[in-house]
């Protein structure tokens, strides 16, 4: 009730002060009372669950840690020591290299490490708040890094085109990091530094870009000349395997499916009938077929339709199949997000004179993608796990590598330990993605309350 001060002739309204809530409804004790022991049945269930958890955890702990064997040369040794009561981690550690790199030669493994190192460094600017032009850096990483990374992994003869693309990729990487260093040290941009150093600062905007482009071209030519004689030994993709293959397939799948999915989703909502029909047909066709079928189609049937001169590589076929399949799924995820954007946003953008593409890229997509982050990351996690299916068409991905240990004479019959390790590894990868998506949701949504 309003607290009306009647003593004075003018009635003034004073709101009552806010009081703290009753003590046993807040804090840890309040939480436990409310959530775990709110009724006798709930108290019983809480205690029962705690007992079940204790039994499970203690048994796993005993098997995986207490009784485990870490040093052994064969499975026989493990069995002699503890029998089946303890895990034989020696088998996992002996095969660790294969789990990660497949049968890639030991002497060349640095190429894989370097490739992934470059990719991580290339993406790293995303985590520096002060860096500008993140979209350009990210786009360059996604669009041109595959040439450099692909050559590092596969090696062999470089054609003129590949050499050119590798040069551009290296130059773009150097430019990105020069830009990052400039941003971090002075808060300026690489463009501004180059423009002022070359004395173009007074020139109009559209002329200012020339020294930047010129420097890029010169650097690219230098890189092109330098790496002319440099060649890596060819590594047949049959040797690729383990986590490496899993990450390559799912990484490319992720990088392709998001943009392809956006394009397909926009196409499905397009007013132009040919585009719409094509997109609907593509999405519905590949969504109604299991991934295994698409993989088999790509690996066994597609070569039948190709001329004999073209001898497709199995991993490339599998990657294409995964990309097509995940794009179709991503398209529906994106469409769901697009439908959540109120009509008023489109109308406001149109009323301001924005063209279709500007409206989509500046107004609709930023909001829709933010809403879709949980679903998109969910698809990515699904994709990472689905890549285990490529083992069925004979690619030695992580899962097949984990199973291959048990066929090795020394470790014959060891199933549980490698699969347990694989489960933990997959869990860690997926959990990181999931946590990162939650982090993204928080940072991108900061300061915004939807009405």
């Amino acid at each position, binding site marked *: 009730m309003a607290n009306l001060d009647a003593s004075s002739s003018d009635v003034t309204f004073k709101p009552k002060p806010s009081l703290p809530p009753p003590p046993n409804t807040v804090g840890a004790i309040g939480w436990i009372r409310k959530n775990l022991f709110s009724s006798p049945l709930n108290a019983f269930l809480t205690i029962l669950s705690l007992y079940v958890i204790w039994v499970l955890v203690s048994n796993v702990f005993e098997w995986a840690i207490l009784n485990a064997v870490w040093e052994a040369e064969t499975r026989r040794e493990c069995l002699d020591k503890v029998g089946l009561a303890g895990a034989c981690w020696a088998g996992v550690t002996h095969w660790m290299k294969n789990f990660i790199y497949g049968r890639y030669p030991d002497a060349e493994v640095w190429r894989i490490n370097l490739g992934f190192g470059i990719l991580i460094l290339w993406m790293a600017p995303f985590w520096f708040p002060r860096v500008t032009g993140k979209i350009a850096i990210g786009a360059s990483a996604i669009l041109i890094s595959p040439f450099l990374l692909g050559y590092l992994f596969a090696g062999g003869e470089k054609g003129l085109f590949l050499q050119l693309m590798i040069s551009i990729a290296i130059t773009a990487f150097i430019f990105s990091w020069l830009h990052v260093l400039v941003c971090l040290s002075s808060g300026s941009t690489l463009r501004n530094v180059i423009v002022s150093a070359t004395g173009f600062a007074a020139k109009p905007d559209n002329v200012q870009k020339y020294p930047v482009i010129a420097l890029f071209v010169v650097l690219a030519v230098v890189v092109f000349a330098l790496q002319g004689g440099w060649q890596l030994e060819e590594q047949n993709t049959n040797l690729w395997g383990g986590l490496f293959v899993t990450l390559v397939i799912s990484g490319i799948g992720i990088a392709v499916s998001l943009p392809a999915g956006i394009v397909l989703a926009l196409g499905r909502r397009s007013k132009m009938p040919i585009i719409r029909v094509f997109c609907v047909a593509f999405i519905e066709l590949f969504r109604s077929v299991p991934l295994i079928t698409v993989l088999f189609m790509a690996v066994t049937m597609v070569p039948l339709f190709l001329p004999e001169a073209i001898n497709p590589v199995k991993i490339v076929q599998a990657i294409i199949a995964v990309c097509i399949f995940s794009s179709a799924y991503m398209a529906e995820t994106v469409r769901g997000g697009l439908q959540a954007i109120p009509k*008023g946003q489109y109308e*406001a953008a149109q009323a*301001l004179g924005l063209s279709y593409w500007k409206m989509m890229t500046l107004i609709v997509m930023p*909001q829709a993608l933010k809403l879709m982050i949980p679903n998109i990351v969910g698809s990515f996690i699904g994709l990472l796990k689905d890549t285990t299916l490529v083992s069925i068409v004979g690619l030695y991905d992580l899962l097949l590598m984990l199973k291959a240990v048990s066929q090795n004479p020394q470790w014959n019959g060891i199933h549980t330990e490698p699969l347990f390790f694989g489960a933990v590894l997959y869990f860690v990868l997926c959990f990181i993605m999931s946590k990162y998506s939650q982090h993204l949701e928080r940072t991108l949504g900061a300061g*915004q309350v939807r*009405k």
Partner: protein
Amino acid sequence: MSMDAQVENIESHKSTKSDEVVIELLGVNKWYGEFHVLKDIDLSVYQGEKIVICGPSGSGKSTLIRCINRLEEHQGGDIIVNGVTLDNNLKNIDAIRSDVGMVFQSFNLFPHLTVLENCTLAPIWVKQTPKAEAEERAMEYLRRVKIPEQASKYPGQLSGGQQQRVAIARSLCMNPQIMLFDEPTSALDPEMISEVLDVMVELADSGMTMLVVTHEMGFAKRVADRVIFMDYGEIVEQNTPEEFFNNPRSDRTKLFLSQILAH
């Protein structure tokens, strides 16, 4: 209405209307499926004129002003804005849209952008205004709608009245010659209506051509050069506010006025 007394006290606003026609509607017809929402609408709007459009819901008043910037497509007749005839030519549509500002009932601010970014987005991306200049102009308009201190906040952090004023500033940043208002105060709490109307009155005084769909009859009496009453997709009656409110001619108008002025 409670605002009447207030309005009487204020000296009548000088009309900024000129003889130049900026919007011309000739026999405009529109259907939503089977529903005939606009029937043979003829209307000329003069430079600097302020028109208030009222009528019961479903009478086609919102549709009418939404046809002027082609948010809705008309199926018969001609709409000529600033000498450009609206047809399927996208260039014409874009040209007209950057000349015609629009304020919506539900504000439709972009929730992922700050207030300042909301105001600078279209000037930067449509008119290629340099960022610094666009920001300077946006701040000027935010001062005009009296919320420069909210520039770095997001729309979701503002009250409805503040959001609507930002929406007005956002439209003004494109330097429009004509402003369309689609029930700008209908979604607002009573205490916030006047802050938005004040901004609109000020805008009217500056000579802007305005078409306002509203039920704020006080506003109509105060600033309108002409009041248009619509029902069943037709213009039933149009007149100066004095004549419209004091001597309504058609029985439909009398009924409408008696209902909205009853309380």
